[in-house]
């Protein structure tokens, strides 16, 4: 037998020692969703698409989604801020760059995200802006008519979107003490989860029927990729060291098995994939059910990974 008794402080005994609560998963989800919107809308801009309606809409080539992404990432940063224990010192993030720290990369990526989102909004300014500041209209029209600018903005949005999406996963993989997280595959997993949640939302919100169909189709591809990445993630853990195997056991019979397979994989990926596959082949009508499941599944994925990761440990006996 091997038995270890420790007098060390432990978050399982003293709740005040917990590391991360709801704030971080919410932040990671909103960051991933914003990343997905940036990639999708960036792609539309890169292709030179344009929504001819006189007001901003939720189509990919308009600015409604950029505006929502702006709000989402700001809410995410608020959640992140709420998690900080030394809030007044938050500016310390921006007086240094620590190349080994994904969190430092993230802080600077977030700074890049804002101007790109703003540019996306200005290319199709909402009426509230143009009505209030009509002097801006000629300039904004000139910007919107400039195809090169649209394409460059699109490219920038794709680039920063991918960086943001991957960073939300790499943030966790760099924390080597938690075997569940020590896999770079969390980067693509969170990116694809963000893409699928963004495509699901845009499919639901888009005013164009053909675009809705298109978004449902690519959402299916994102969901299928996400499923494959989840499986690779588990294969990677189960073929590694004992500590990683134990971490995988959290999902393979351990405490998180039901919520992971039923909530995240079943309801969040497989079921909406089936519904949307039937919908794009016109065997069932499109309903908001699948998009809602995808979005909640994306949120559940962050909660499960952040929470289970904090339990996973290197074992010392």
């Amino acid at each position, binding site marked *: *037998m091997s038995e270890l008794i420790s007098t060390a402080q432990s978050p399982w005994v003293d709740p005040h020692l917990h590391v991360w609560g709801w704030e971080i998963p919410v932040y990671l989800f909103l960051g991933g969703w914003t990343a997905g919107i940036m990639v999708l809308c960036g792609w539309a801009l890169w292709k030179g698409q344009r929504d001819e309606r006189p007001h901003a809409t939720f189509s990919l080539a308009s600015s409604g989604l950029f505006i929502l992404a702006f709000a989402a990432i700001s809410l995410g940063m608020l959640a992140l801020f709420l998690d900080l224990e030394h809030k007044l010192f938050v500016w310390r993030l921006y007086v240094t760059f620590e190349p080994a720290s994904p969190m430092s990369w993230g802080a600077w990526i977030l700074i890049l995200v804002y101007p790109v989102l703003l540019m996306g909004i200005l290319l199709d300014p909402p009426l509230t802006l143009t009505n209030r500041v009509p002097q801006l209209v000629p300039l904004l029209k000139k910007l919107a008519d400039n195809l090169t600018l649209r394409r460059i903005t699109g490219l920038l949005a794709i680039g920063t979107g991918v960086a943001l999406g991957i960073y939300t996963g790499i943030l966790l993989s760099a*924390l*080597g003490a938690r075997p569940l997280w020590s896999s770079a595959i969390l980067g693509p997993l969170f990116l694809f989860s963000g893409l699928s949640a963004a495509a699901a939302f845009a499919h639901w919100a888009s005013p164009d029927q053909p675009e809705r169909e298109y978004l449902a189709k690519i959402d299916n591809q994102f969901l299928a990729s996400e499923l494959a990445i989840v499986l690779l993630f588990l294969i990677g853990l189960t073929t590694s060291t004992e500590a990683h195997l134990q971490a995988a056991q959290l999902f393979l019979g351990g405490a998180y098995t039901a919520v992971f397979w039923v909530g995240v994989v079943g309801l969040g990926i497989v079921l909406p994939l089936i519904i949307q596959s039937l919908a794009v082949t016109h065997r069932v009508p499109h309903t908001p059910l699948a998009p809602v499941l995808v979005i909640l599944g994306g949120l559940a994925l962050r909660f499960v990974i952040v929470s289970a990761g904090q339990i996973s440990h290197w074992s010392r006996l």
Partner: protein
Amino acid sequence: MARLGMVIDTVRCVGCMDCVVACKTENQTPEGMNRDWITYATRGRYPDLSLTIQSERCNHCDNPPCVHCCPTGASHVHDWGGMVQITREECIGCKACLASCPYDARYIHPDGYADKCTFCLHRVEKGEDPACVAVCPTHCMHFGDLDDPHSEVRKLLDSRRHHTVMPEAGTRPQIFFLE
């Protein structure tokens, strides 16, 4: 370059927790938070059991994940002796370092910054031993420069079998336990 570390004799340690109390007194750590602790590992099959008692704390790792992941540089390797330290005024309390330490050596101080064992930097700078080493009634703890071939810690490591805690985590701990 000096490399400060600890060598602790598990054969002598009786688990009296004097080191834990000394640290709490010396560093005035808040209620419910400790920078060092004792582990009692029992192995074998009854009646052939063996007990290993260890006084543990931050390992001042040579490959410290807590330093690598810190976004502000608050967690850093001290310019003397390789000790891992935290600059309170630079810490934003993001807890990345807590999540990255395999030994759970860190906690968030009620004032908002990450905190942990400093090897009693304020004493070591004056040439004294850390408080835990100084009070140990069995003299099982030794502190010094691991790079100095004439130091007591180096001689002990060169002459006795020893281990570190969870070396497989890849952190290269600088606290060694004699067997």
